[in-house]
C-alpha cells in the first residue's frame, strides 16, 4: 500500500496522472436528503456532515448522472464529505467509522443524571403544574431517608465515572435537610466507588435562606432556578399568595450570583400559553437580568396532552411562532454585540456543525431516558425520565421501571420495561425518521409519543416532537444562509465571541 522509498524518477507529473480514471461510475455511501426551502435541498451523511445544494441535486447523484469533469466542484465536495466513493469500499472508511463511534460516544458511559424528587411539596400553586402539593405533610410527600439511601446505591452502580445528582421538587429546598443528608452520603459513597459527583438543586428560590448558602457553596452545588419572563408573566405563571414570585426569584438569583458565583446559577424558562404572546419581552427580561443564555422550552404537552391531533398541531405551531420571534430578538442582541445564546438551538447546532458527541437528554438517539437519565420519585418509584414521572402523576405508569429498595439494578435498567422502551428509542429505526435528513440532529421520545399518540412508536406525520424539531432544524439552516448569523452560531458552540 505504501510506495517504496526510492523514487524511480523525480520528473514532475501533471495533475491528471493522479486522478482516478477508471471510474466509469461512482458508488453511493449512505446519506439522506430533504428540501429545506424552494431553492435548496440538504444532503446529510451518516455522521451528520451536510451539503446545501440546489433542489434536484440528490436525484442527479442517485441516478448517477453526475459528471466528474462537468460537475467537478460538487463531485469533489461529495467525495471529500463521504457522500460518494470511487471505490466500492472507500479508502478512508475507517475514518468514517471512527467519526460515527465518536458521534455516538455519549452512550459510552451510560446513565449520568440521577434525579431525586426530594419532595413533592411546594409553596407555589402554579396552574400548569400537575404535580406538587401545598402541604406540611413531610411524611407523605418527602423522600424518605431509606429511599435516598437506596437511590444512592443504584446511582453508585452506574458504570459512568461522572455522576450528576439532581434534586427536584415540588420545591426541593423545602426538604433542605434531606438534601444535606443525601449530598453527604453520596459524597461518602462516591469516594468508595470512585465517582466524580456534580450536584444540582432545582428550585424556585423562594424558600432559599441565608443559612443554606454556606452548605451549597461548600459542596459546589449548582442552582437551577426558573425565570419565566418579566414580572407580569412570571407572577401570573407562578402563583403565590403574595403574588411576589418574580421579586423573590430575582432576589434569590442575585444572592446566589454574589455568593456562589455567576457560573453556578442558571435559570430555566417555562413556556405557558401566556408566554406565547410575549417572546420579545421574555428575551429582554433575560438580558436585563444579565444572562448569557436562555432556553426556549416548548410548553409541556403533558398538561394539554390529548390524542387530539389538531389541537396538538395547533399548540406546536403557536410555540414555533413564539420560538422564532424570540429567536430573532436573540440574534438581534448578538448582532448588537450582546452575547446571548439559545440553548436548544445550540444543542442542535453542535450536532450540525461539529463532529463531537452531543448527548442531550431530550434530543438524542438512542433517547436519553435510562441511557443518560433516571428518576427516583419521592415515593420510591423509579421512572425512565422526568416526563415519565409526570405521566405517572396522571396515573399512567407505563414508564415506571421499578421501586427503590425492591428492584435490582438489572431489573431497572435491563428489565422488560426497559427493553420495550428500547424498541422505540432509536430514530434510526423509526418509520419517518429512518429516512429523514435531520435524523442525526434529532432524537426520539417514546414518552411523548405515548402521551400524544397512544403508543411509544409514534406516527411522524402528526407527531408534535417531529413537527417541532423538523421546523426548528430547518429554520436554523435557513438562518445560516446569512453568514453573519452562522458566525454567531459558532460563538454559541464555543461559548465565546471572537
Amino acid at each position: 500500500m505504501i510506495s517504496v522509498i526510492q523514487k524511480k524518477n523525480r520528473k514532475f507529473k501533471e495533475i491528471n496522472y493522479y486522478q482516478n480514471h477508471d471510474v466509469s461510475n461512482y458508488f453511493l455511501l449512505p446519506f439522506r436528503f430533504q428540501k429545506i426551502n424552494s431553492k435548496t435541498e440538504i444532503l446529510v451523511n451518516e455522521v451528520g456532515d451536510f451539503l446545501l445544494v440546489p433542489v434536484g441535486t440528490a436525484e442527479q447523484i442517485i441516478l448517477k448522472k453526475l459528471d466528474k469533469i462537468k460537475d467537478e466542484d460538487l463531485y469533489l465536495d461529495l467525495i471529500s464529505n463521504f457522500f460518494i466513493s470511487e471505490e466500492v469500499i472507500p479508502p478512508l472508511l475507517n475514518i468514517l467509522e471512527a467519526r460515527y463511534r465518536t458521534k455516538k460516544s455519549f452512550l459510552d458511559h451510560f446513565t449520568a443524571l440521577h434525579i431525586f424528587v426530594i419532595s413533592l411539596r411546594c409553596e407555589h400553586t402554579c396552574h400548569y403544574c400537575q404535580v406538587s402539593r401545598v402541604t406540611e405533610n413531610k411524611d407523605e410527600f418527602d423522600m424518605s431517608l431509606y429511599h435516598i439511601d437506596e437511590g444512592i446505591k443504584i446511582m453508585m452502580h452506574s458504570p459512568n465515572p461522572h455522576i450528576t445528582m439532581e434534586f427536584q421538587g415540588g420545591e426541593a429546598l423545602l426538604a433542605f435537610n434531606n438534601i444535606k443528608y443525601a449530598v453527604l452520603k453520596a459524597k461518602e459513597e462516591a469516594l468508595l466507588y470512585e465517582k466524580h459527583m456534580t450536584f444540582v438543586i432545582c428550585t424556585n428560590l423562594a424558600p432559599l435562606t441565608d443559612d443554606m448558602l454556606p452548605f451549597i457553596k461548600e459542596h459546589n452545588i449548582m442552582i437551577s432556578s426558573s425565570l419565566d419572563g418579566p414580572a407580569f408573566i412570571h407572577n401570573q405563571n407562578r402563583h403565590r399568595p403574595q403574588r411576589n414570585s418574580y421579586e423573590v426569584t430575582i432576589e434569590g438569583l442575585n444572592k446566589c450570583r454574589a455568593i456562589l458565583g455567576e457560573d453556578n446559577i442558571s435559570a430555566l424558562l417555562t413556556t405557558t400559553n401566556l408566554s406565547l404572546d410575549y417572546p420579545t419581552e421574555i428575551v429582554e427580561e433575560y438580558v436585563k437580568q444579565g444572562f448569557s443564555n436562555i432556553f426556549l422550552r416548548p410548553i409541556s404537552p403533558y398538561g394539554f396532552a390529548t390524542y387530539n391531533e389538531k389541537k396538538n398541531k395547533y399548540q406546536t405551531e403557536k410555540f414555533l411562532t413564539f420560538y422564532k420571534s424570540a429567536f430573532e430578538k436573540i440574534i438581534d442582541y448578538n448582532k448588537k454585540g450582546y452575547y446571548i445564546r439559545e440553548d436548544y438551538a445550540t444543542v442542535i447546532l453542535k450536532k450540525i456543525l461539529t463532529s463531537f458527541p452531543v448527548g442531550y437528554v431530550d434530543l438524542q438517539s438512542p433517547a436519553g431516558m435510562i441511557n443518560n437519565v433516571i428518576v427516583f420519585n419521592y415515593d420510591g418509584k423509579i421512572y425512565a425520565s422526568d416526563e415519565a414521572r409526570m405521566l405517572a402523576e396522571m396515573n399512567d405508569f407505563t414508564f415506571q421501571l421499578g421501586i427503590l429498595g425492591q428492584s435490582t439494578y438489572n431489573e431497572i435498567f435491563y428489565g422488560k420495561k426497559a427493553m420495550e422502551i428500547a424498541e422505540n428509542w432509536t430514530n434510526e429505526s423509526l418509520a419517518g425518521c429512518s429516512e429523514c435528513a435531520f435524523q442525526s440532529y434529532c432524537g426520539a421520545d417514546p414518552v411523548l409519543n405515548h402521551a400524544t399518540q397512544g403508543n411509544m412508536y409514534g406516527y411522524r406525520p402528526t407527531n408534535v416532537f417531529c413537527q417541532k424539531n423538523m421546523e426548528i432544524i430547518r429554520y436554523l439552516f435557513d438562518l445560516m444562509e446569512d453568514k453573519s448569523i452562522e458566525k454567531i452560531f459558532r460563538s454559541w458552540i464555543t461559548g465565546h465571541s471572537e
Partner: protein
Amino acid sequence: MILKTKGSPYDINTPIIGRVTRIPENIEYEIFISETIFSKTWYKFKAVLSTVKIISSLEIPIIHSIEKLDHLDEGDIVIINTDGIINTIYRKNSDHNFLLFTERCNSNCLMCSQPPKDRDDTDYFFSQYSQAIPLIPKDCPEIGITGGEPTLLGNRFLKLIKQLKEELPETELHCLTNGRSFAWENVAQKVGEIDHKRLMLAVPLYADVYHIHDYIVQAKDAFNQTIQGIYNLAKYGQRIEIRIVLHKQTIPRLAKLAKFIYKNLPFVEHIAFMGLEHEGYTSFNIDKLWIDPVEYQQELTEAVSYLSDFGMNVSIYNAQLCTLPENLWKYSRKSISDWKNIYFDECNKCDLLDQCGGMFASGIKKHSDFIKAIYFS
C-alpha cells in the same frame, strides 16, 4: 548564514563530532579551534580546526588551512568529515536549530524547499545525530527535525526520538513529516510508546480531496496515507500540527480543506497556513504555484476565521502584514529562521516592522506586488 566550511584534512579516518572551543582550558569540549601554531594543549582534544596551514605530522586529527571559522561560536556542535568539510549541526546561540535526519523522501512536493536526494544517507545521519544529541545543551528550548522525510530512518528514527527524549527532556521537538509512514499503525504505535509529551508532529495537508494533494506532493495514494497516518497518530495520543502551504494549487479549495480538518481532524493542536518559500523546486514550478498573496486573502480569511471561530489554534507563517487584511494580523507569526529572514527597503518606513514576519531571503526573487509600508497616524 554559513553552516558549512572546508579545509585540508589530516589524519581523519572517520567523521568526528563535537563541540568547538577556542579556550585551551575548556577541555570538556571535543574540538579545539586554533589560529596559531601547534601547542601541547591540542592533544587534550579529539580534533583541531585551524585557519593556519600545518605541515608537520602530529598524531591528532586536524583540518587546517580553513579560510574562515568566524561563524563558529563556543559550544557549537560540528561534524568534521574525512574530506575536510565541516558542517555545523547545532548553533548554541540560535533558536532555530534543526536536525536534518535524511535527505531521502517518498514524496516530491512541487514546492519542496529542500529537494530530496535518492542516495542512502541514513547510516551517516543516524550515526551523526546519535553522537551529537548528548552534546546539545540541556536547556535548549526547541529543536526542529526535518528531512527529506525523517521517518524513512525507520527504527533509527524511533531511536533518535527516544534519545532526544532521554537527553533533552525539556526541549520542544518539532518534527516535520509527511505522515505517510504512520499509515502503518505499528509505526504510529511505536512513536506512541516513546510517549514524549514534547514531540509535535507537523504534517502537511494540501487538499480535502486525494488527487490534488497527491499532485502537489507528487505521490499517488499520499493523501489517504497521510490522513490514515494522522488518525493513527491521534489514536496513540500524539500531538499533531497541520501545515498548509498557500499557492495556486491549494487556494481554490482552501475553505473546504479547513472544513475537512475541523470535521475529520478536530483533535489537531495547531494549524499553520504558510506563505510560499522560494527555495528548491519552487522556482522550477513557479508557474504552477505563484499567486500573489493579495489575491488569496478572501480564501485565507474564510479558512482562518472558520477554524478560529471553532476554537482551533491557527497561525499564519511567512506572511507580510501589508498583504494581509487587518483582521488576520493577530494570526501572523514571525516564523522565518533568523538567517533566512529579510525585509524590504520599504519596510524601514513601516510602523509594523517589529510585528511583521517579513520575507524569506529567497523572496527577493519573487514577492507580492503590494509590499507597502503601513503608517499609524
